[in-house]
């Protein structure tokens, strides 16, 4: 179990991790999500004692990392893939790590076989592809047969087969009752891997809930409508209690727009009702498409206020900046204040 309490880390004037508290439970895969620069890696480094926090604590099974008697037997970590001396063989890299914990040489061979590097174990790691380096990193993490795994973007650089492999590995490890804490900036990857999600943005907690709950709360349903007469339709929909926004044409994958039609994103009304309203008002419709918000959309809406790098206000206009939804109220103001229909791609 990993516990972070009020964790704070500043680099100069920049706050990387801002009073962050969360708990990672054993027996399930916990996804750690956030846009680039949200503070995921820094948080993991704080948990692992590599960076020293300005405030707060992080413990693993109740102890600070540096107080663990035999750290690699308790925690396995994968931080960045290419953290290997280019001139040293994969075997020797794992061997020196194993020796610090008094682990036997045969355990090194075991993890090498486990990650499928048997044939290249004696080769210099400098010649490894990113995927091979990633496997070597996983081998190092599994070396001490740890109860807790901390993996920073483990699928980076892996081919589809490798991604599937690591996905199954993480699930198998969690099923054995281990704590698996895995970061990613790819929501869809987490949707198929993680049982639980911790979402951060600008170093602050945005959501801490199960993956199911996250999807249910965040993915607002909307309907895409195309009409040459948007004003009258909008009036009819608004009168019936729906919300209308002009969708961004360029961002919509629906193809070329038929002469003069405007795309609207409608929320709060089902597609059938919108069709009826249009018929009653004698408005011509070119398209009427119900859209289920994807996890990726939900994620982008949720973190729209807290994107560190990127165009400000691009996805779903930031309504109340600097006001993160409290854990357990994931959908909060951010999702309600924007139109998911066709805006987020």
């Amino acid at each position, binding site marked *: 179990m990993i516990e972070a309490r009020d964790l704070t880390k500043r680099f100069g004037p920049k706050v990387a991790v801002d009073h962050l508290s969360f708990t990672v439970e054993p027996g399930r895969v916990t996804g750690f999500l956030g846009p680039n620069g949200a503070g995921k890696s820094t948080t993991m480094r704080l948990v692992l004692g590599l960076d020293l926090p300005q405030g707060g604590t992080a413990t693993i099974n109740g102890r600070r990392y540096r107080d663990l008697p035999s750290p690699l037997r308790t925690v396995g970590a994968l931080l960045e893939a290419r953290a290997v001396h*280019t001139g040293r063989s994969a075997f020797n890299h794992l061997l020196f790590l194993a020796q610090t914990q008094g682990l036997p040489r045969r355990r090194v061979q075991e993890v090498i076989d486990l990650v499928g590097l048997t044939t290249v174990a004696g080769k210099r790691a400098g010649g490894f592809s990113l995927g091979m380096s990633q496997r070597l990193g996983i081998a190092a993490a599994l070396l001490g047969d740890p109860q807790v795994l901390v993996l920073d973007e483990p699928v980076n650089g892996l081919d589809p087969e490798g991604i599937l492999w690591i996905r199954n590995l993480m699930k198998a490890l969690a099923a054995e009752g281990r704590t698996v804490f895995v970061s990613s900036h790819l929501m869809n990857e987490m949707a198929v891997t993680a049982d639980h999600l911790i979402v951060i943005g600008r170093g602050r907690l945005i959501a801490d809930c199960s993956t199911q709950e996250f999807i249910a709360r965040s993915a607002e349903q909307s309907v895409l409508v195309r009409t040459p007469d948007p004003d009258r339709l909008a009036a009819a929909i608004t009168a019936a209690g729906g919300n209308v926004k002009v969708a961004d044409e360029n961002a919509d994958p629906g193809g070329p727009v038929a002469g003069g039609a405007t795309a609207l994103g409608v929320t709060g009304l089902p597609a059938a009702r919108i069709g009826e309203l249009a018929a009653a008002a004698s408005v011509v419709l070119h398209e009427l498409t119900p859209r289920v918000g994807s996890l990726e959309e939900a994620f982008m809406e949720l973190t729209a206020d807290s994107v560190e790098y990127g165009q400000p206000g691009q996805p779903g206009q930031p309504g109340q900046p600097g006001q993160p939804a409290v854990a357990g109220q994931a959908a909060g103001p951010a999702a309600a204040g924007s139109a998911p229909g066709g805006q987020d791609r």
Partner: protein
Amino acid sequence: MTSAAPARPASPPAPPARRAGFGHVLLSEWTKIRSVRSTVWSLILLVVLTLGITILITAITSAQWNKIGAASQTQIRLDPTNGILGAGLQFGQLTIIVLGVLLITSEYSTGVIRASLLAVPRRLPMLAAKGLVFAAITLVLGEIVMFASFFIGAAILHSHVPVSLSSPNVTRAVVGGGLYLAVLGLFALSIGALVRHTAGAITGVIAFVIVAEPLSSLIPGPWGDHIHDYLPTVAGRLVIQTARTSHQVLSAWQGFGVFCLWTAALFVAAAILLMRRDA
């Protein structure tokens, strides 16, 4: 490729998680040092350079003996050991400087330092073990190279200036040469750990060894003598002198002690920063 097998096929029933001992860390650092080719090459270069330069200088001296002039002859007669060992050591030490710096800066440049510190999160045992293993290697090899240089050089110079280990202070000087290399390795390692960048650290050590030395000898009078003698590597190399010069402020062992103090101070500073800085 591999099925998503659980992570513990045939692994032993986890032994009681007692704290990994310092012996384990020493073994680990030994594995790190021996498993990288640059270590082996640097040490081979140390032997080749030191012996090569020693043979070259003593052979030229011997062949040109009648042409080098009375002043040079007097100087070599006064301290033949320094004449034999000095030049070889001057060049050979560069390999120890580079290797000592690289041992730690290469961990930072490749990111291995994170793996190292995850395995030894108290950090200090890692640096201490690295220092001990490296000092042991340089001491053994340094003594071998110094004794070999001495015997070869003494044999070449024998017809002009006979010198043996039984001559006054000579054994101390030869043994001291090996000690000097071992401490120099720690000196370089400490600066590497402080600076954490290969180029910067090597430049820093070389600045001490190659730039500060001649610069300080330009300062006239007793001030200059003091500053010169208290420079780390100048002080350290006093140990290979068998005869004291008129400008010399420190004795041989005093000089070596000053060098050790410099190194200890740098090592402590490196250790404190290692504990305090983000890795």
